[in-house]
């Protein structure tokens, strides 16, 4: 099942700049490719900051007991 795509608008001069940039760089097949890459990077940066640790303080105490018993702490 192929990924579905949608369109976003960017200013034409920016599009032209990116075209020039990727002509010199290997690895990007199109402006869309480049924009997708950059946006994934930026979005991931924000997401990493927001993710809370997946456990409660009770979990942490239990885990610490096990880690101590095993000699890790």
């Amino acid at each position, binding site marked *: *099942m*192929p*990924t579905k795509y949608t369109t976003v608008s960017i200013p034409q001069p920016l599009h032209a700049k990116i075209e020039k940039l990727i002509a010199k760089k290997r*690895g990007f097949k199109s402006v869309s490719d480049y924009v997708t*890459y*950059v946006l*994934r*990077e930026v*979005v*991931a940066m924000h*997401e*990493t900051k927001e993710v809370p*640790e*997946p*456990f409660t303080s009770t*979990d*942490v105490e239990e*885990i*610490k007991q*096990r*880690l101590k018993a*095993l000699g*890790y*702490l």
Partner: protein
Amino acid sequence: MGESDYGCVIDQMRLSDDVPWTLPVLLQVEEGPDAKDGDELLLRSEEGAPAAVIGYEGTFRIDKKEYASKVFGTEDQAHPGVAKVYSSTGLAVSGRLKVVGRQDPGTYAEYTLSPKETRVLFAEKGWQTVVAFQTRNAPHINHEYLQKSALALVDGLFVNPVLGKKKPGDFKDEVIVDAYKALIGQYYPRNSVVMSVLHYEMQYAGPKEAIMHAIMRKNFGCTHIIIGRDHAGVGNYYRPYAAQEIFGEFPDLGIAPMFFREFYYCTKCAGIASEKTCPHGEEDRLNFSGTKLRKMFGEGEVPPKEFMRPEVAQAILAHRQPFVE
């Protein structure tokens, strides 16, 4: 993994929600279960223990040739990953995981930590940055240098050997664990390294598997992962540094790769070197093939200390048959 995720993974190296994911994870069956969409199914381990509950969403057939060529880059059945795909049923179950039981760690319970546990452990140790080392081998000196070079740049090292099904000629699980215990006990500062094992079956998918290895270590709370030469490769199916290049396609992995060239003992440099630091030829490198090493250990011989720490060699020799037959 359902049909739409499967399709996205083999074509785009992402799940259908855009999360990086490079290898299919399929539940293959002989025949579809007698169930309808939405039913809950209990999955059992090979030993019969309850393992997970999924919400059933039907079955789908995979094209094994397509799977092999898109995932492994080859349809050659001499490739162990390809052979496994060809010997599978080709009928996969779609469903959403609802409950996952804790895996029975078998004989390695005391060395098996869950991602929650490693995250708490790293936090307790005060490590902000942790580099993971994936391995399926007993440590040579060159592995130790690789790990210590990376450790110089971060707070902690997470040695995470893979235990589970292996190829004949590979070191047995217990040998790898004992060899690392010997190495870490003698040559690593206690507060800089943690070893825990990972129960996982290698697929030998080279670059694509390197990405999965990174994702797994991110889940354990690591910020970095060491990617060396021919990571997760087998035979000559992948270019030596293909597993490093592929990381350029994933700006959103959430774990940073640390790339290294191969280390070796150079007789002219009289020390551990790499292609980056040593101008000498291959004839000056101290190297033992897997075959040679198996022969040496078979005859009770110890490799030179420039190749392997004597304590590690002794830990291996303490096993009567250290290799998978």
